[in-house]
């Protein structure tokens, strides 16, 4: 038993992968079991992730060396550089891993009834498992080329899932093509940057690169490429155009995972800026680049959301705007990284706000997309003009929608308020104007969700939706779990911030500790 748990980091990847490989064979014999298989495996993965998280948060970072004689043998005897692929799991990585496993598990539960009428379900679940696996890989790995491989799996599987409904109409295929083109460019640019690193330092391990980083001309170019393409994959303005297309055309459960996937890219951006470059780069300039990207995303995202007529497109623009908050919080932290006084007084808090917002965003954005999926399942339309009066028939969905909308708009006591409050207060001490913009964006967010609430749920019972029923149980369970977590996080924010978010932020800031985990010694 103990030895199995020693291999938990590898099993987090290997189990869903094995399930994904078996699914096509199994799908030939018994179509019904596939959804349950996927759900069970993802549930098991969630348990493993929680176990690993407990290990990491109590005993410090875990390393797992693939193919070595021992799991912790990072360096071959008598050498000072790692040669094998190493999983390096610190508080930040496992924080993202928790989000991913939770979201993937709930998406699998939700899909059981949501995808019932679709054909090709074995392919759907295979791709779902693969997408979850690839996100784990991106978050846990400590090897930059391994990151590229998982990045590519993530984009290919999400493209296939976005285009999954293209047998019905052409739009999903169009959205998939757009996403595929931009993510191929980004993956190739990441590979080019890896080549730049490899050519200079002859290393692929992120900690090794970080320990010899000199910020030469080539490192600058690699930084430009990596920051741009990862910010693009996270959906920041002005490279956000794929986001509304992809999010609105994917099935609802997949949209929820795509939100988490774009946050995994955001995580990779933070990892590269903080763990590989850290203070060698010009922190103020790069910090301001992140801040400007964040502010643009917040503002343009929310203003574009207000004029949308498609419910999922509207929510997709909101997720762009929420990404802006994370970039803003962490960007402020980066901008004051070389100034210990400012870092201590508000930089760390700003980063805590930004990182805390990641998990909050995954929860309420996921909930909102799931409610949008529930509406789509019953009314067969995403056009807000055609909806109305759904609150009469879909009571649970309405309640969940209100919780999600209140959380995203930052109304206490839900979780969105907690992280936004931290961001406002700490950013205000950095630059008051930014905090004011952030608050304005929050108000506009509330306005646009009031619009959705009014046009979809309120109003008289419409003729064509007289016979609409509440959605099936599995969908309600998934939404209820998310709602409970939102309320819990909102009521006890300090619990989360202190025990999960703060270690994650410290793991990002403390580069010496990151390299020492692999290379040994301080």
């Amino acid at each position, binding site marked *: 038993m103990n030895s199995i748990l020693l291999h938990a980091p590898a099993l987090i990847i290997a189990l869903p992968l094995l399930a994904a490989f078996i699914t096509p064979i199994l799908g030939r014999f018994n179509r019904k079991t596939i959804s349950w298989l996927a759900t069970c495996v993802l549930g098991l993965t969630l348990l493993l992730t929680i176990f690993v998280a407990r290990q990491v948060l109590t005993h410090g970072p875990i390393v797992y060396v693939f193919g070595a004689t021992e799991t912790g043998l990072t360096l071959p005897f008598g050498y000072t550089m790692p040669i094998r692929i190493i999983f390096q799991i610190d508080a930040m990585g496992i924080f993202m891993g928790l989000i991913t496993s939770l979201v993937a598990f709930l998406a699998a539960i939700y899909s059981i009834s949501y995808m019932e009428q679709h054909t090709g379900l074995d392919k759907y679940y295979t791709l779902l498992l693969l997408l979850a696996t690839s996100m784990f890989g991106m978050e846990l790995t400590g090897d930059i080329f391994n990151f590229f491989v998982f990045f590519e799996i993530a984009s290919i599987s999400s493209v296939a899932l976005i285009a999954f409904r293209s047998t019905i109409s052409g739009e999903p295929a169009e959205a998939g*093509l*757009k996403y595929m*083109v*931009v993510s191929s*460019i*980004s993956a190739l640019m990441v590979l080019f940057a890896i080549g730049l690193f490899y050519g200079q330092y002859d290393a692929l391990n992120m900690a090794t690169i970080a320990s010899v980083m000199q910020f030469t001309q080539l490192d*600058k*170019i690699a*930084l*430009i*490429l990596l*920051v*741009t*393409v990862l*910010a*693009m994959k996270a959906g920041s303005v*002005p*490279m956000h*155009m*794929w986001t509304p297309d992809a999010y609105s055309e994917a099935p609802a459960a997949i949209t929820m995972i795509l939100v988490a996937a774009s946050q995994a890219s955001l995580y990779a951006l933070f990892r590269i800026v903080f763990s590989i470059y850290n203070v060698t780069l*010009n922190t103020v*300039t790069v910090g301001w*680049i992140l801040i400007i990207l964040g502010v643009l995303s917040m503002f*343009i995202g929310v*203003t*574009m959301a*207000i*004029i949308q*007529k498609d419910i999922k497109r509207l929510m997709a623009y909101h997720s762009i705007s929420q990404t802006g908050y994370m970039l803003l919080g962490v960007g402020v932290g980066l901008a004051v990284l070389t100034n210990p006084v400012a870092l201590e*007084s*508000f930089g760390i*808090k700003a980063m805590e706000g930004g990182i805390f917002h990641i998990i909050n965003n995954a929860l309420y954005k996921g909930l909102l997309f799931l409610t949008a999926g529930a509406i789509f399942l019953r009314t067969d339309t995403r056009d*807000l*003009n055609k*909806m*109305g*009066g759904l609150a009469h028939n879909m009571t649970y969905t309405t309640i969940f929608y209100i919780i999600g909308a209140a959380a995203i708009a930052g109304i*206490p*006591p839900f979780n969105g308020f*907690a992280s936004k*409050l*931290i961001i406002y*207060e*700490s950013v205000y*001490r950095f630059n008051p104007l930014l905090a004011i913009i952030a608050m304005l964006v929050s108000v506009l967010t509330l*306005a646009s969700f009031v*619009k*959705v609430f*009014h*046009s979809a749920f309120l*109003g*008289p019972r419409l*003729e064509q939706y007289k016979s609409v029923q509440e959605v099936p149980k599995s969908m309600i369970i998934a939404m209820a779990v998310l709602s409970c977590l939102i309320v819990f996080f*909102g*009521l*006890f*924010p*300090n*619990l989360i*911030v202190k025990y999960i978010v703060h270690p994650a932020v410290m793991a990002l800031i403390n580069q010496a500790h990151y390299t020492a985990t692999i290379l040994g010694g301080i």
Partner: protein
Amino acid sequence: MNIALLETGSGYWNTLIWVVTALIIGVCVLWLRNRGESRYKKDTDQTKPFLSGNPEVSKEDSHVGASHLYWGFTEALKNYYEPLVKMHTGNINDYSGWIVLVMAIIFIIIGVS
């Protein structure tokens, strides 16, 4: 440690106090509401609006659609919205063009500094 207390760096915010306050306010509102008129009945002449003698519009027709909400807002910000909407062309060439453009801008910023 008080788990319901959120430290924000420059101060703190207590969720429990907020929840309790909200509950008290809610109870007060309910109490005020109960003190209101008790002879009010639904679906009688009491609730019918008087529109200068015109017949009342049916409820289905009076529902404001999503496109008409915030009409004034978008109309007032027309100068802002027009170029913004035009920017979202939906053309794949432009999608990749924006990426290259942002790369170039960041290159100029980082290269100069």
